[in-house]
């Protein structure tokens, strides 16, 4: 056993926590900029310490458990929601040398483990014994079931052209051409479905603050609430990493610019995805619940299926086949 086996995940956790604090600040700054505001600018220079102050506030807050709540489940729910969020990071390869678990079914592992979070959300919503929380939890489950199918169907195009579920092999296969070009329909479906899986605007119905107060975590305060939020932002990290690996060529450089190290390329593409997530949040209104189901089942699923057929046909055509 290597020393890195134990230290590596700890470092990763530190990096992820750092990312989360910075991402929250960045999100508020970006949204502020798009809406013609300054965003947070009081705590520290340029508001850098705003998220740190927020986290400190959350940790110091009184921990309230509602009298009518199901106490053990109320305490377990944030843990069930958070643990999978960190566990999925194990399979994402950052560079040819920086990776944690190089397992054969990496892609499926990510999708399977990430769906466990819904159980945590559902348990939290039910244990709160509050009708808004329960409604938010119900919406979350419905959304997860509806959008996981197009998400999986969209990546089948990638899997077909690589012939492997291993994320390292998928990145290696994009040496010459990133999959965002030949698999563009797949990428579009994947990106929309991943927004829904992340519960981010325009798909933030499980916690729609204007109709459900705060959805499934309405009764949560202090560090339990912080854990739900943390899970959400760790998923942003994971999903941006996965999108980079699947469609943007991971650490592969553009135009053969190999003098820039692979990790910088990865971080650059990763930041681009994270920025688009914030951009979408700042510009799109929330989708209606009936439109949500229609979009999932009547638009994304047929598109994803069409993408599978198209990839299978184009693979057999002589010259074009080399790209698939």
């Amino acid at each position, binding site marked *: 056993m290597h020393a890195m086996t134990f230290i590596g995940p700890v470092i990763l956790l530190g990096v992820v926590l750092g990312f989360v604090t910075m991402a929250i600040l960045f999100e508020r700054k970006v949204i502020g900029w798009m809406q013609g505001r300054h965003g947070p600018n009081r705590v520290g220079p340029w508001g850098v310490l705003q998220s740190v102050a927020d986290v400190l506030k959350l940790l110091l807050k009184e921990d309230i458990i509602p009298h009518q709540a199901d106490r053990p*489940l109320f305490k377990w729910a944030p843990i069930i929601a958070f643990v999978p969020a960190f566990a999925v990071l194990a399979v994402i390869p950052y560079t040819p040398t920086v990776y944690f678990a190089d397992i*054969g079914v990496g892609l499926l592992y990510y*999708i*399977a483990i990430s*769906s466990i979070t819904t*159980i945590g959300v559902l*348990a939290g919503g*039910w244990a709160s014994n509050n009708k808004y929380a329960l409604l938010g939890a119900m919406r979350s*489950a419905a959304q997860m079931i509806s959008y996981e199918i197009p998400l999986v169907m969209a990546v089948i195009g990638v899997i077909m052209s690589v012939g492997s579920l291993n994320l390292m092999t998928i990145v290696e296969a994009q040496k010459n051409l990133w999959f965002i070009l030949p698999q563009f329909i797949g990428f579009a479906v994947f990106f929309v479905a991943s927004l829904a899986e992340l519960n981010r605007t325009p798909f933030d119905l499980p916690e729609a603050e204007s109709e459900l107060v705060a959805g499934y975590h309405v009764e949560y305060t202090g560090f339990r609430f912080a854990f739900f939020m943390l899970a959400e932002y760790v998923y942003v990290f994971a999903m941006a990493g996965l999108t980079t690996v699947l469609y943007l060529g991971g650490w592969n450089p553009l135009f053969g610019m190999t003098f820039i190290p692979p990790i910088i390329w990865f971080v650059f593409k990763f930041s681009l995805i994270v920025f688009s997530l914030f951009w979408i949040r700042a510009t799109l209104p929330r989708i209606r619940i009936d439109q949500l189901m229609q979009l999932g089942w009547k638009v994304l699923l047929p598109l994803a299926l069409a993408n599978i057929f198209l990839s299978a046909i184009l693979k057999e055509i002589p010259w074009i086949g080399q790209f698939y």
Partner: protein
Amino acid sequence: MVVTGESIAFFVLSMMAIGGGMMMISATKVVHMVLSLAFSLLSIAGIYVLLHAEFLAVVQVLIYTGAISILMLFGIMLTKHHVTEEDDQSPRRWHPFLSFLGVGALFAIIMGVIYQTPFANNEEVTQSYSLEALGKAVFKQYVIPFELTSILLLVALVGAVILAKKEADS
């Protein structure tokens, strides 16, 4: 018997699986039951990982977490939430004793069968079973049963839709 990391992991995982099953039986609230079921099923996925059946483990997690969430939704929607579970002090006092007897007999029979069944002594090498080999077996060697199963599932799906539609119309 040599105590290796693998055997420790197996014991922990199997205790978790059995413990989840026992919690499932003894819990009184529907949501608790469903969650203990999920715990049990996820531990079984861990045992699959120990057997180098990674694909099976991942699919187990993928399918059962979805199934568990749906089961939980139905559990919440179809049962009364606010009614506190009444302690059923059933007048049938012999029931625990009789059921213990029945379970004990079942256990004895199963253990007897397991110990009498001769196992081939050679250990199977599971490390070499790759996902690729599995795909080839399913889509080449057993393609006809596989397709027939998918048609069967499709028929069941269409049947369920028709049944639900009839109810909605009336």
